[in-house]
């Protein structure tokens, strides 16, 4: 088993990056790898509940975040400073995440076999 870490860094609906990252996470989980899914920078907006992307002709692909637990993806993190910079708290999010510091993220990356940023 390898440790695959994914860094979701883009806002949810301006590009296809959020869905691309989520698809990679789910594919890795299907192969029963150790997955770390980390939201940072504008990527923390992907976690926010209550998105209504119908209004811009987009599909709410992030509803699938709810399925992470079913796929066995338990290590879901948000970078604390990215959250606080945007005045977001856990109460704004659609799934529970663990907050991590930049130092903890560095250690996580260091301990990973593959890191993918999207």
């Amino acid at each position: 088993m390898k440790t695959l870490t994914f860094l979701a860094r883009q806002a949810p609906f301006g590009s296809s990056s959020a869905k691309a990252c989520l698809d990679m996470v789910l594919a890795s989980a299907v192969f029963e790898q150790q997955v770390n899914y980390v939201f940072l920078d504008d990527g923390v907006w992907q976690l926010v509940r209550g998105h209504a992307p119908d209004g811009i002709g987009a599909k709410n692909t992030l509803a699938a975040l709810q399925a992470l637990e079913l796929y066995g993806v338990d290590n879901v993190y948000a970078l604390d400073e990215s959250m606080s910079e945007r005045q977001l708290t856990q109460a704004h999010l659609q799934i529970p995440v663990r907050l991590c510091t930049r130092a903890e993220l560095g250690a996580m990356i260091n301990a990973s076999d593959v890191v993918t940023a999207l």
Partner: protein
Amino acid sequence: MIISVLVTGSPVSQQAAQSALSFCTAVLASGHTLYRVFFYEDGVHTGNALTVAPQDERNLNTAWSEFIQQHQLDAVICVASALKRGILNNTEATRYQKPAANLAAGFEISGLGQWVDACLNSDRVVSFGA
């Protein structure tokens, strides 16, 4: 060392695919092994055989196609990314009743599982995003 490469940037508007080609050339020249090159998101445009470059510019897609064939590399285009962007092989063109197929020689279309497999079987996975 066994190396796999992920390309997510567009070959026409970003440097990623060129950087990846240069890197892969160096990988082989240094005696390492390329397990797989996986094209994802806008990177799948690299597999389009119908691109036309201006006369004084190199056609990067052609360069990739020739490189893959010359070294008999495993080059995979993500099927979900490809279909959305109109990169089709004969099978997909027939399946979705499209007027043409355009996948360049050397590339094959497959799923994200191939990328996970590359992660599992490589010592290093190097991403080229933008």
